């Protein structure tokens, strides 16, 4: 970012992952290489890939992380809930539990998606609104006469849950943060975008602190089918724990749910209040690929170089598991930092917890930061042959690197949608 006037640091991490709530389960899970991917049941089992990583957390326990009398579960999608649990974990870990105080100088940015779970009621409504013509095996015709009945099935809550700003709005209410609030949609890079734009808010003086990250829940039939059609899932007849190995010959991924948020604030303010500074955000880059321009690698390199002015020690790449996109990502890293990726060590969480849309990159950023700080020793290596063009990344996944103060991390999300974002962080003592 040009015109950077204020230094922005990360002073807290909040996590909701299939391993559980908080950084401790994430550290343990990734250290052991524990795979949270399991066979799905019910109708979800009928849609490829048939496996996924879910958080097993009863709703009655949500009140540990936010006030369910204020934030009604009925107005929240699962992804909004995951975001609020992560934010609650973040604030508890920083001893900043909301006490009703309003903070006009603080805000909340979240990357999310456009609410797949809400379509479930739409489907039920559509079954009534549209009926299958007599004698036909497939297809539906619209019957406006049934609209009245369909509308009785709809409720205000269905609509409210489906509003795209609900994730960040809930975060605002949960925290009392009355400054900038925004939900970014559009691609898996939205979580990193939210963090990058939050940094911009602090640098420009529009906020003194921000909670930012991503939250997502993919377990909806149509969403899984859509992503499957884009070639994202591994449908091999393998044990779930062996299915996902990005950058290897074993292509394809699996869905997971997660929420990962960070507390960002101005460095001087953090020092003044005696906060533990986990790392400083050193750069953010975002580029979009225009198809057909032949700049597939160049736009990725631009994003990487904008995020990291130098050579990283740690890399938290996309971990997509898509043969062509993995190859392009490795080519970009090699172009930006050298054929051996600057000797950096890489870390991906997707083999163990799957792809969680806009939450994927924030989750891997968190894991990468913990690794660069020496608080997480990730399982090394994928034990699978590298895909052609991805050898350097597979090597990096088997390496270790410097940890502690001064260690540099870069996290990237090069999405299948052509939106590419990268964020650089340097560890503080």
């Amino acid at each position, binding site marked *: 970012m040009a015109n950077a006037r204020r230094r922005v640091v990360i002073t807290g991490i909040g996590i909701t992952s299939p391993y559980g709530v908080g950084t401790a389960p994430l550290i343990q899970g990734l250290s052991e290489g524990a795979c949270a991917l399991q066979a799905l049941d019910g109708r979800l089992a009928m849609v490829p890939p048939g496996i996924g990583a879910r958080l097993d957390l009863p709703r009655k326990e949500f009140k540990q992380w936010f006030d369910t009398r204020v934030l009604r579960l009925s107005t929240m999608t699962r992804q909004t809930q995951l975001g609020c649990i992560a934010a609650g974990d973040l604030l508890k870990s920083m001893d900043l539990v909301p006490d009703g105080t309003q903070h006009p100088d603080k805000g909340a940015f979240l990357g999310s998606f456009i609410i797949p779970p809400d379509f479930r009621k739409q489907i039920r409504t*559509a079954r009534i609104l549209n009926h299958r013509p007599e004698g036909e095996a497939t297809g539906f015709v619209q019957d406006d006469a049934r609209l009245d009945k369909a509308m009785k099935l709809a409720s205000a809550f269905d609509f*409210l849950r489906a*509003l795209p700003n609900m994730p960040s709005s809930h975060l605002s209410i949960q925290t009392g*943060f*009355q400054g900038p609030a925004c939900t970014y*949609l559009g691609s898996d890079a939205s979580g990193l975008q939210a963090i990058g734009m939050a940094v911009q808010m602090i640098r420009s003086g529009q906020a003194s602190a921000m909670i930012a990250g991503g939250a997502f829940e993919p377990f909806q039939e149509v969403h899984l089918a859509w992503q499957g059609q884009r070639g994202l899932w591994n449908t091999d007849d393998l044990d779930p724990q062996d299915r996902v190995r990005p950058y290897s010959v074993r292509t394809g991924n699996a869905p997971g749910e997660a929420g990962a948020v960070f507390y960002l604030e101005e460095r001087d303010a953090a020092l003044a209040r005696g906060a533990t500074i986990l790392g400083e955000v050193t750069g953010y880059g975002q580029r979009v690929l*225009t198809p057909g321009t032949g700049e597939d690698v160049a736009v990725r390199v631009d994003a990487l170089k904008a995020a990291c002015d130098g050579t990283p020690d740690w890399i938290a790449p996309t971990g997509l598991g898509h043969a062509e996109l993995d190859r392009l990502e490795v080519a970009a890293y090699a172009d930006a930092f050298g054929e051996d990726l600057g000797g950096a060590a890489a870390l991906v969480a997707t083999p163990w917890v799957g792809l969680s849309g806009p939450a994927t990159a924030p989750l891997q950023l968190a894991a990468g930061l913990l690794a660069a700080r020496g608080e997480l020793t990730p399982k090394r290596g994928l034990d699978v042959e590298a895909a052609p063009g991805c050898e350097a990344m597979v090597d990096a996944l088997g390496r270790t690197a410097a940890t502690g103060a001064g260690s540099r991390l870069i996290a990237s999300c090069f999405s299948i949608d052509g939106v590419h974002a990268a964020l650089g962080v340097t560890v503080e003592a």
Partner: protein
Amino acid sequence: MASHSVRVVVTGVGMVSAAGRGADAAWATLRNGDSALSAIELFDPAPYNLEVAGEAKAVAREPGLDRAFQLLNIAADELLQNAGWSAEQLDASTGVVLGTCQGAIEGASGIHRDYQSRPVPAATDAGRKAFAEYRPGHGTALLAERIGAGGPCSTVGMVCVSSSVALMHAVDLIRSGEARRVVAGGFEAFTQFVLTGFHCIGALASGELRPFDVDRDGTVLGEAAVLLTLEREDDARHRGATILAEIAGAGIAADAFHMTAPDPKGGGLERAIRQAFDEASIGPADVDYISAHGTGTVFNDGMESKAFSRIFAELAEAGQMPPVTGVKSVFGHTLGAAGALDAVMALRALTEGVLPPTVAHSEPIEGLEAWDFATDGPKAPPAPVNVVLSTNSAFGGNNSALIIRRVEA
């Protein structure tokens, strides 16, 4: 916003709305105090006890393309005609930031309906196309691809403040140096899904949308796509572009109050406005007129008027309260496109030197009797319009404010 040393100006506009294709058609309708609302034809409105909406009748249904993207394409047509950017300029230094409330929700609903008869969609070209539209950021990607923009690209999902926040982010991108020029705005189609939602929460008007009227009882939905080209002032002058106005300041603030009801005191909106004033280095006395959100709902207009009352208290007491206008009674509430639509109409008021009227307003909310809602038709303001304050608010308690300022040639 970041550095004040970089002034960001608007050099082009493209739009389609209930008033037809183009900003000229929209401005002519608004200026004349006409209504662009018309009988609903996209689907049967009977169950909603409604008759009119702001449908863009100039846009016929096009099979195979979600209506939201149809609208976006038409706005892009006009924008590309008048932006005057060369192909060489449209590169990694050009960004796209769009806002939308529900994107291609109609197409997505269709996918879900189809899915009932074909649980695992076949990997056909048609299937792939339909699923591509399901992606919420598809509109932004479509536009970026069409104009060849390779810079920062994002989709803001903030309901009724989406496109005003998109404009704010666009200014930030230019001021921070991350982009040299940005296409920003918003798009929204009139859909049964959203209409049903507004019906369920009781936010629809029984008749007219009556901004700030004592008898207001709800809003009327509309549809639009509105795009603006933003760039550095020095770049615009260097290439001899017509500068329409400057986005001089912006503010964004959350109520952190309630999921549906706004802060009844308008605290969030007040903070957003004061932040925008600070950015633009102006005060209330510099505002020549206020383009209010004015949805015609009891809560929104009540909240807005309280925020305005506090900010402009001294001026009101001196009988110098700037006129307050609202355009939604003309175009309907266009949700994700509303902020950009309001901004474009404010631009035209600046360049034409005419104060647009507030249509369907007859008797103000109690306590606002002294305010000028420009109900007596279009008129030349007593002094040149140099600065417009444009405000928007959304469910979930999000508020935005933009300061749009005249730029001398």
